[in-house]
């Protein structure tokens, strides 16, 4: 079990090289925060790791599985799930339908039902909203649906793209707490891409800082939080 290992990854976004020769690792069972400012290449990175975008060079492995060039739906079946910004919840469908979507490909109906009940225990606010259209939910609730849908696939590696975007601090804290729970109770490996560096580093074990597509620093989250130069230059606080 080697976890997520990314080596010398380069990805272009149009004419710009959004990710350059990036190398980092996410240990299995850890919660790693990948942080950087807007435009640092974080979203492009995730898209390349889950088959939504073609990488130019480099490699990315989840244990023995090569992530580059795979199809997103194939990766889901291998336990790698990407919760993408704007592409995780279908607003015109109900909450229940959105959750079911994540479990569609799975064979064991009982296990799917079990997963659903586990998700409702994790996010009790959704229980009363199952038949509501996702468009009517608040930002935080929608994020719960997004994560819930991902969990329906029983992932081993969860990649989250800026789940805190547009959410109030209290809601962010709730969401991040759930992520913590997921890591400790369910043994998930989580890569959390965030602009909100402070909250992310507080909940993470490990941190990776990216700027302009390149690796700036990586190490235990507490260490990164404590480094004043780093904080001033890249973390904005």
């Amino acid at each position, binding site marked *: 079990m080697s976890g997520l290992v990314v080596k010398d990854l380069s990805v272009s976004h149009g004419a710009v090289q959004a990710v350059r020769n990036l190398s980092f690792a996410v240990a299995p069972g850890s919660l790693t925060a990948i942080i950087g400012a807007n435009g640092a290449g974080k979203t492009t990175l995730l898209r390349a790791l889950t088959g939504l975008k073609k990488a130019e060079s480099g490699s990315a492995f989840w244990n023995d599985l090569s992530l580059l060039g795979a199809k*997103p*739906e194939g990766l*889901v079946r291998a336990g790698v799930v990407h919760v993408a910004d704007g592409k995780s919840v279908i607003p015109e469908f109900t909450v229940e339908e959105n959750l079911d979507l994540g479990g569609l490909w799975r064979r064991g109906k009982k296990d799917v039902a079990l997963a659903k009940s586990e998700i409702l225990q994790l996010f009790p606010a959704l229980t009363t909203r199952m038949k509501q259209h996702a468009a009517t939910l608040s930002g935080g609730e929608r994020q719960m649906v997004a994560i819930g849908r991902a969990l329906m696939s029983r992932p081993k590696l969860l990649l989250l793209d800026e789940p805190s975007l547009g959410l109030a601090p209290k809601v962010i804290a709730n969401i991040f707490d759930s992520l913590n729970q997921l890591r400790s109770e369910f043994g998930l490996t989580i890569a959390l891409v965030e602009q909100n560096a402070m909250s992310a580093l507080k909940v993470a074990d490990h941190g990776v800082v990216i700027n302009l597509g390149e690796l700036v620093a990586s190490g235990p989250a507490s260490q990164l939080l404590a480094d004043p130069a780093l904080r001033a230059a890249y973390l904005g606080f």
Partner: protein
Amino acid sequence: MIRLISTLLIGLSSGAIYALMALALVLVWRSTRVVNFAQAGQAILSTYIGYEVIVHVNNYWLALPIAALAGAVIGALVDAILIRRLSQSTGPSAGIRPVIATLGLLGLISSIVGLIWGNDLKRIPTPVGTHGYTFGHTTIPFSPYNLLIVASAAIVMLLFAIVFQRTNLGLALRASAFAPETARLAGVRVDRTRTIGWAFAGAAGAIAGVMITPQNALSPNSMDLLLVLGFVAAVIGGLDSLIGAGLGGIVLGLGLALILEYVSTSLAFPAAFIVLILVLLVRPQGLLGKLRSRDA
């Protein structure tokens, strides 16, 4: 009064056929955002296969499901071989390419059908009576056969509605059409699901073809007109909605019947255009369609 009821019944029967064709077109539109002109070709090929079954076994009730099955297979093949490649295209003509391809495919299938079976008119016998029902002294122009058509269309639409709204497959179909990238990220095999959508559409078109043929003759191009009317019905109903397809079919069928009866018997085709234009002037997105940005 009798005249009105008869007219409406005739309109209902023909409307049912248009609705089936419209259903096939809407199914494909919703799953791939392509207008499948080849639907007529697929339907005609399936109908000829049904014809062969009747020629050899003389059983309409066997021919119908076999034709539907053939329609499903053909539809799936068309999507897998042709449309998947075109859906990934880019460039200024990306929007028109699949449409032109289906037009080409229509010509291709019609020609092949003509090469195999010839262009002469073939006939398929009706399985039930075609004499209108009689009430006392009056006979209305609605026969057991018309009833069969309306019933079949209703059953097919009901079946599809149930599949789409209440099954997992339906959820996958809807998600693949609506938000394909989101569906992929959720693990849905979008390409395969779309192919299933095409298979369903092919089956619906085949049923429409087999049902309408006993009334007209069968020839390689005999379904082109049904394609146009089916498309008009789909547009009237709004291409985004399966119910719309049914509604559009009925509106067109009734509208045509009324115009033909009360205005002039030979205004069939212009009448279709008139009904269409009237609806679109009021609602450019069709009766039940959703107003989306032009690029959608």
